[in-house]
């Protein structure tokens, strides 16, 4: 009974994101001309999963009290690479997928090594590595497109519907949560990641493998960003080295993570929260579709809704009775 109370406290951030998402999505569905149909859900799912993957990538690093401004660029690099590698037979496609994921892994590892051994602040170092990753993406894909013989089968399978109703992308995401996130959360290294983010000196003093934890976090971040890039390729059958898009995904991932209750100071929050944060963030954009705004006022509407959503978290301030608690 008592234990339940603690579990609930742990999930509060995530539940808030879930609530925001449900409200906005319900509003969206209620006003959608097509209503609650599998197609509408599939569309929302595909778009949401894309950002959710990048937000999960961001989560790993944010949990260590870092920030990764290169996730968007790893995402773009993976997208560009996949537009070349997803060709031919199932075997070659599978190899291609492996290649893309390995690349993401390598990018994350580079970030990790620079942060750990270079002892550099992640926010700056990832600005710089982001430029490098984008440069490579632009190198391999100077203009948008895909390789001849691009194999759409895997793409269609993963962006389509299972049994004609359930979005496959969402299933994929759930599988990732079950097979990667939850085991990670419960593993020793996962706990080390939380410990390092919560208090690095204390973690070090306690014999927590600080460096290994950080490294794993960055590597996983790279891996998930690359999965996002893969999904982008599935979704568009092509790659594009767009700087603007990379930055958009980086910034959206931060917004999603915060909406999802992950603390930017590290050590608190979960990838599941980040997923709901991403879905909620996407739902803000979706609302434009169902409400008839003057097109020129749409960006303002989106900004204001985002502002309101991020301000929601400050409601807890009114409960703070000890002003010193404001600073922790």
């Amino acid at each position, binding site marked *: 009974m*008592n*234990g339940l109370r*603690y*579990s609930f*406290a742990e999930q509060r951030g995530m539940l808030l994101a879930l609530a925001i998402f449900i409200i906005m999505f319900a509003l969206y569905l209620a006003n959608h001309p097509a209503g609650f149909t599998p197609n509408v859900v599939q569309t929302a799912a595909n778009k949401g999963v894309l950002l959710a993957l990048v937000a999960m990538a961001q989560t790993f690093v944010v949990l260590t009290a870092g920030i990764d401004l290169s996730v968007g660029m790893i995402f773009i690099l993976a997208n560009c690479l996949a537009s070349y590698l997803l060709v031919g037979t199932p075997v070659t496609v599978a190899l291609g997928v492996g290649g893309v994921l390995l690349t993401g892994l390598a990018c994350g590892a580079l970030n990790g090594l620079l942060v750990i051994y270079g002892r550099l602040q992640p926010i700056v170092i990832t600005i710089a590595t982001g430029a490098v990753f984008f440069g490579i993406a632009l190198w391999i894909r100077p203009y948008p497109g895909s390789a001849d013989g691009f194999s759409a089968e895997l793409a269609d399978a993963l962006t389509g519907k299972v049994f004609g109703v359930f979005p496959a992308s969402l299933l994929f995401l759930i599988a990732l949560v079950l097979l990667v996130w939850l*085991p990670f959360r*419960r*593993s*020793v290294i996962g*706990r080390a990641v*939380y*410990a390092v*983010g*919560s*208090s690095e*000196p*204390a*973690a*070090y*003093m*306690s*014999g*927590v*493998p600080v460096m290994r934890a950080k490294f794993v976090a960055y590597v996983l971040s790279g891996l998930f960003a690359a999965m996002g890039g893969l999904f982008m390729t599935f979704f568009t059958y092509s790659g594009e080295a767009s700087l603007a898009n990379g930055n958009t995904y980086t910034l959206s991932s931060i917004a999603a993570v915060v909406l999802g209750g992950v603390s930017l100071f*590290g*050590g*608190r929050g979960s990838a599941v929260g980040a997923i709901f944060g991403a879905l909620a963030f996407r739902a803000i954009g979706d609302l434009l579709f169902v409400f008839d705004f003057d097109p020129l006022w749409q960006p303002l509407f989106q900004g204001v809704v985002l502002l309101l959503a991020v301000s929601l978290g400050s409601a807890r301030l009114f409960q*703070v*009775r*000890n*002003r*010193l608690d404001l600073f*922790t």
Partner: protein
Amino acid sequence: MDDEVPLFRMEGVSKRYGGVHALDKADLVVRAGKVHAILGENGAGKSTLIKIMSGVVAPDEGRMMLDGREVSFADPAAANAAGIVCIFQELSLIPDLSVADNIVISNPPTRFGMIDRKAQQAIAREALERAGGGDIHPMELVRNLPLSRRQIVEIAKALARKPRVLILDEATSALTAADVETVFGVLKRLRSEGIALLYISHRMHEITELADDCTVFRNGRKIATYPAGSKTDDEVVQLMIGREYSSVFPPKTSNVDPAATPVLEARNLSWLQRLNGVSITARAGEVVGLGGLDGQGQRELLLALFGVLRGVSGEVLIDGKSRAINGPRKAKAPDIGMALIPEDRKTEGLMLPMSVRDNLSFAAMSQISRAGIVDQRAESAAIDRMIKLLAIKTASPAAAVGSLSGGNQQKVVIAKWLMVGPRIILLNDPTRGIDVGTKQEIYALLRQLAAEGAAIILYSTDYDELIGCCDRVVVLYDGAVKRELVGPEVTEHALIASALNIDLREAVA
């Protein structure tokens, strides 16, 4: 003592930080089944010594032997694996993890590669029980625990690692007498189980009670090792500070006018469930103590007076006039003139990376600036005066405060508030982790300030301090005033009895 192979031995170990010899060719022998106390004033090198032992800091030279075999530790994990476990002076708990997570942090029980939460809870419960913290829920987040409870968790965490050598660096400095008793019980049992204990404390009576062997350090050098009880307290202190030692507490020469309007009067302060109608007064020239077990609302009372808490009901009168104090800024304004020496100097009192100068002038900005522009000459003068007044030992005012020893850091906190020229001084456990010599200076200073007309409220977890310093002690229990002891009534017996909420007459009878 000489014929057995000691469990742990350290020879000629040195460590320099820049120009400072933190440790200079130190030797140490630690035997199984004994409590070895390390004594020394602030900055003597005690923490450095045990950081080297436990793999946190790499020594510049010297060697360490465990069971007669030479060892060296790359990191704390390696030392842990060898059976050397340390409870550090700065807490090493992870605030966002649960108590159970923290207790098993270095070696959690796993099943199929995953952490086994059930097993971990069981381990945590048992360790907490052994450390005297059976009341702490293993799933509670550490950040939600008060400091004294965290200490207990810290001890439980060390026990869960099955140590052969257990090091406690001022592990009891945040604990109250009752908690200390519990912990001592645990330590004595561990000693009987054959564990070697290394115990660092600035509290002499703790060492008297617990230690088998003692080693005194001064300026990074080992001065002497002797069996406990073979020297008097005065001799020991003399070894520590290297000079004649006189009585710790200055005489209580208070000349308070009991008829005068109190400088500070609080009526019926209540806040959440933590303060339940506390009333307290302080007159000019008076040192008022706050007593009671830790966590009975003393900290909250000080914060409430200082305007840090929101939603406090009741009334605060300054010079007999009701004032609404809504924050430190208001509190320190000249017409109120209040200062608070906070509990935790590292997070609430100081900016460690900043210079002594910047820290000192921080609260007194309005005194040393005009129209928002700092008058650097006035600032330097004021700072030099303070450094002299409190004899703060620093290479230069430009040195980072973090590089000073703990005692000197605490002096900086006090000095920074003295620069404001306060009439009301609230002190929250100001001598925690501070050596005898420095304590003495601080007591003298408090007396002097009182003599100059300040009203002082002093909260301390150390009963000796309350007895030695205070004209009057207000004992809190469960957020309310339990008893007020005046003058000669302030005795250890009375303090403990009222702190534990035992009716005094009954206890006497």
